[in-house]
């Protein structure tokens, strides 16, 4: 049985065992549930869990290890000459063996040794599956039998089941920590490998980026330069343009909708603006690349400006549109959190509405607004699809928004999409960029959340 069917079989089995355990509990007390410590169903769960959990653990462990064990067994079964081959060629032979088994096209002539190895592989695979099936089922039955025998009127089945449930809850909540650790470790290790071949200082302060490493030693023109400054300036330029669009529009619309607009306009305009937040970024990317960029180029041409068709302006503008609802809903929250008494005080002194807003509400809400803007900046820096589709690939060191620039995220995508070997500096560079991106956005988020939280406490 394959892993999936086996799991399904185990689930089916434990459903069955639930009923068996429940019935057993009732029989033990002669059909009088009052004499049981727990409700009969808990004895059922108890039996089912004892069958399912150990067997599922074994199943997971087995499936994780079985491929590597089989592979090493097959390799040791190969002729001596083949085993002496370097790692990469051995990998090719293994691939051929696997292809032979699945009936795919094989890259070399099928000689008897290969066929024998394939047969060996297949045999081991079948053996492993059979062993796994037998073992998992045996463990399930053993666990169930143990639990079944343990059923007694005084047995605390509910407590045992509830402990398992709480353990599952705890495990689920720690997943967030494991995710963070996973992110840090996965980008950190590859980055360290990258920094072995490219010094950190060159990466952080170099001004030339052309991640084409030479495949042959005598190749011309692909020296591989990993200075990330042009990427930082490009990212900052596009984020800055996005902020120029998003912050005034987002902030002013939040102010207008919360302070001026009547309920009718508010109930109509607010959800419409929220739509902008729900649109997938790939749609914005398409819009930027195929609608906004050509318009910009034509407008530029008509007033005598030379606008690149992958200009930072188009990407920044569209990214700004994307971030408008983000800024406006965050500002809306903080503006509404300013106590009404402060507004009333200002009106009482004879201030007009706009004076109240500018002199009282905005200063009071400023930390929150700054926090919101910082969060928006971190989103702009980490945004990928818009820039991948609308910004360029060439790493120009420029502050001119009409030219094409590239960003950190664009480079991560271009370096990692497509076939690549996993240990060239070119691929590892993507992880170094990822580490940088993670650190920068994390710092921005921590600062922003801190600012927002600190401000909230003031009025509570």
């Amino acid at each position: 049985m394959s892993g999936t069917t086996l799991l399904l079989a185990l689930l089916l089995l434990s459903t069955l065992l639930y009923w068996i355990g429940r019935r057993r509990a009732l029989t033990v007390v002669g059909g009088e549930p009052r004499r049981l410590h727990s409700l009969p169903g808990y004895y059922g769960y108890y039996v089912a869990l004892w069958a399912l959990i150990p067997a599922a653990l074994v199943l997971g462990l087995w499936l994780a290890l079985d491929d590597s064990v089989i592979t090493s067994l097959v390799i040791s079964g190969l002729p001596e000459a083949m085993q002496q081959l370097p790692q990469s060629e051995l990998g090719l032979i293994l691939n051929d063996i696997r292809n032979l088994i699945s009936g795919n096209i094989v890259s070399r002539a099928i000689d008897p040794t290969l066929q024998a190895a394939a047969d060996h592989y297949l045999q081991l695979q079948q053996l492993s599956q059979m062993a796994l099936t037998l073992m998992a089922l045996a463990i399930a039955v053993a666990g169930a039998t143990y639990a079944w025998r343990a059923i007694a009127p005084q047995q605390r089945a509910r407590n045992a089941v509830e402990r398992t449930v709480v353990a599952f809850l705890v495990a689920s909540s720690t997943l967030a920590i494991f995710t963070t650790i996973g992110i840090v470790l996965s980008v950190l290790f590859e980055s360290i490998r990258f920094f072995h071949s490219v010094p950190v200082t060159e990466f952080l302060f170099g001004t030339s980026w052309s991640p084409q490493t030479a495949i042959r030693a005598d190749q011309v023109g692909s020296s591989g330069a990993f200075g990330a400054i042009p990427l930082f300036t490009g990212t900052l330029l596009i984020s800055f343009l996005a902020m120029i669009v998003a912050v005034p529009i987002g902030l002013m619309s939040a102010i207008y909708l919360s302070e001026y607009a009547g309920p009718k306009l508010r109930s109509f305009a607010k959800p419409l603006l929220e739509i902008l937040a729900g649109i997938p970024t790939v749609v914005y990317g398409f819009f930027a690349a195929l609608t906004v960029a050509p318009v910009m180029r034509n407008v530029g041409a008509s007033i005598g400006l030379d606008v690149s068709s992958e200009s930072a302006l188009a990407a920044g503008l569209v990214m700004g549109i994307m971030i408008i609802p983000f800024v406006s809903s965050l500002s809306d929250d903080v503006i509404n959190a300013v106590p009404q008494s402060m507004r009333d005080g200002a009106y009482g002194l004879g201030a007009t509405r706009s004076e109240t807003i500018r002199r009282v509400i905005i200063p009071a809400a400023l930390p929150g607004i700054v926090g919101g803007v910082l969060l928006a900046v971190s989103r702009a820096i980490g945004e990928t699809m818009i820039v991948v589709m609308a910004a360029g690939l060439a790493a120009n060191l420029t502050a001119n928004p009409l030219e094409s620039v590239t960003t950190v995220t664009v480079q991560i995508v271009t370096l990692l999409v497509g076939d690549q070997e996993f240990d060239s500096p070119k691929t590892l560079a993507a992880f170094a960029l990822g580490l940088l991106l993670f650190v920068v956005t994390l710092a921005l988020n921590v600062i922003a959340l801190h600012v927002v939280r600190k401000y909230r406490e003031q009025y509570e």
Partner: protein
Amino acid sequence: MQQPTRSIDVVRAGLAKRYARERRFKTYGLLAVLAGLLFVSILFVSIVSKGYSAFWQSYVLLPVKFDAEQLDPTGERDPAVLSRADYGGLVKQTLREMFPEVTGRRDKRRLYDLVSSGAAFQLRQMVLDDPSLIGTAKGVWVPADDDVDMLLKGHIDRTLPESDRRLKDQQLAWVDKLQAQGALQQRFNTTFFTAGDSREPELSGIRGALMGSLYTLAVTLLLSFPIGVAAAIYLEEFAPRNRWTDLIEVNINNLAAVPSIVFGLLGLAVFINFFGLPRSAPLVGGLVLTLMTLPTIIIASRAALKSVPPSIREAALGIGASKVQTIVYHVLPLAMPGMLTGTIIGMAQALGESAPLLMIGMVAFIVDVPGGVFDPSTVLPVQIFLWADSPERAFVERTSAAIMVLLAFLIVMNALAVVLRKRFERRW
């Protein structure tokens, strides 16, 4: 002598200016709102106006003679023989018979270019499905080439000089003639919904991407809903206030703001390189999206749990329920609508997400419709990304149409969330 100024005069003197400033400020606010609404409408109008035409597709009526000599020389109706017959030749022969005046080699090739290369496969499928067709003649609607389709939809300018046009004068004349005969029609584009990806725009469809999205989302939902709800229950109902739970909370809040592409790097390094899961598989996509949507679901579920009043818990505990029983039988049912709303919103995010999936290889060109979570596949947003990169004009409208389908799904999901909230949300 100096006149003593009363403050009311100072106020009056500045009043006109202050009112003008007030009006200006209000106008700025209104302009900001209008600008936002304008962007929404431009976005939708530009996508719909580009994409609506993709739901129609030009078809050519070919009077095909299924010649027994040519298709089945052995006369045994053997499927192996039938599937190997030269259907491309059959299409070409039919075209030649329709336009007997075309003779030159180059002219003939141009003539063949009017019909999609998928026509031959269509005829083959027809014959294989129904071998009794052989020996008969039948009018068959086959897809026209994408250039012809673009011409009919008005995307190819007839007034351009011939050398700048994808279709030459001759081909224009043939198209006009076909149209006059009623042998060229626009019909509803079923291919778009039933086919996988293709290099030929007229043969490409979103079914493969839709199925990929479906499998990916199924994996995401199966994992993120139970885990997210469990984590929320622990943090809200069980967790003591200490450093450990603070750490978890900070982590969740930060993960919610980590750029999605970083999750893609995690997926590449951990799931693909470390665990050796297959590239491009919906399983890996689902795992990555699970990690990404978990914070959303956890935060929404915690809010839902918080809104259940403590009196419910106290009542249940008071009549002897255990803590787990209280939560499972009393708190969870009341919090479920809120949790489901959060989950649907999380799923909508996951459906629109593409950046992390680029990292784990779901950008491959995949023609086959995936049949499970281990098959290589792509998802709808990535399909949009791929098509947006294609040079053919016909892919522009297909990209827009795919966007329309994606947006339709998102709107339905969000509307569902709103309905759920309105319908079941209780105010205590």
